[in-house]
């Protein structure tokens, strides 16, 4: 009778272990040990297209408020494509004092916009989020 109870309890113990292993491997570990990297969606192009003309600081503050960015650097170069010369170059920083640089993840964007009068706006934008 005693031997039988030992076999039954050992059998139950094995079942409990199997269940614990299954739960850990199938449901817990895959989630706790996987890191997913995804490109953050900062649709800055959409934001830029909402207005025809931006000043660098105006754009920087719009990016900060729209996307909750902690750090923003905007550089706008205005080029006359017809004469192939740079007309204007402005830049603007929004850098927090209480956040260290290494805490931020940076996203860098470069794109251009051409208008019918031959003026090309070149946007160089850096966005840092925690």
């Amino acid at each position, binding site marked *: 009778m005693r031997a039988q109870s030992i076999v039954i309890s050992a059998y139950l113990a094995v079942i409990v272990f199997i269940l614990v292993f299954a739960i850990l491997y199938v449901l817990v570990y895959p989630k706790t040990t996987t890191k997913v990297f995804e490109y953050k969606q900062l649709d800055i*192009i959409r934001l830029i297209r909402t207005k025809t003309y931006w000043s660098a600081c105006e754009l920087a503050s719009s990016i900060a408020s729209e996307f909750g960015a902690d750090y923003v650097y905007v550089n706008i170069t205005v080029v006359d494509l017809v004469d192939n010369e740079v007309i204007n170059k402005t830049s603007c920083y929004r850098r927090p004092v209480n956040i260290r640089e290494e805490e931020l993840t940076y996203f860098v964007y470069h794109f251009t916009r051409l208008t019918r009068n031959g003026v090309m706006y070149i946007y160089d934008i850096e966005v840092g989020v925690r």
Partner: protein
Amino acid sequence: MKAHIPIIISLVMLSALLVSTLYYITSRTTHVGETLYGYTLSEWILINSDLETLCLLSLTRGSQNASRVFEETFLDTYEEVFGDFYASLNNFRSALRVASIAASHEVDREIDRLLLNWVKYKRNEGYIIDIVNSTGYYNVRIFMDGEWSVGRGVAGVHIVVDMVSPYGEHRVFNRVVEAVYEIRFWYGHPYSDNGIHWPVSLIAYIRIDSARYYYLIPHEDMYLLIISDTLYYLDLIGIVDNTITAYPISAFYYGAGVSYALFRIPYESLMHFAISIIDHKDELVTGVSERGYPMGLHLWATLTSINIDNIIVYSALKVAFKFEIWRYYSRCNWGIRVRFVGDEASWAGP
């Protein structure tokens, strides 16, 4: 001893659990998610829009220079062979061709220059760009559509740009932007309300790739510059050397880009106009009509242009000035029939 077996088994399993747990928490599986319809797609959309703007800009600037060159070259090249309709028509076609070639260079140069400037800045951003094709053209030609005389002017640019983005994505942009101005003429008459009347249909549009954007031509922008040596002999109002400019007295928009306009070339009176032909019949008569009367057949080479949102395009029109005269001997009077027709072989109209 037997009692120890479950303890040993449980210890072994516990150890296995601990080891695997340690293994899992010290290693990390990395999964990278790539969003195809995110930033990069918007960027290509922006580039596509930039290229469209670039084509329109090149066409605007190029067509303005090209139109000036076209007009100058045409006026320098075209020579009417007075009294010989077909020789004049040949010269007219040839002058249009020569002027179109000269004008094409202007549009071509502009698109090449602006595209290279744009490419230079995009290359600075890290794009690999190959300009497969960059062509600008300007072409004015005349042809017949049944009895309709048709003139068609096209100014356009075509670019094929192969691009690889800094992220490794590849796109080929094939863009065509054209401005088209077409005019059609069948026949017109001199009328008693003091002018020769030409009903003309006009179509103007910009084609971006396969989409047409029709342009409603403002009434005040319509004109026809008529060039003919016959004007030295005719009693018309507003002749400058061998040219006269006709303006519409009425115009309406029919739809789908087609406007109809009634142009008038004014004279003092129908009688004066008829007499001016009869008085100069020795110079103006070129042969004999099918009815056996003396007749004249002369080319009125016609130019016109349109400004569509600062894109200027010329078009041309072949008009035959035909008349036949006869004398009523019983009354010592002259009879005259005058037509302006698109098809020189016909006496179109009532």
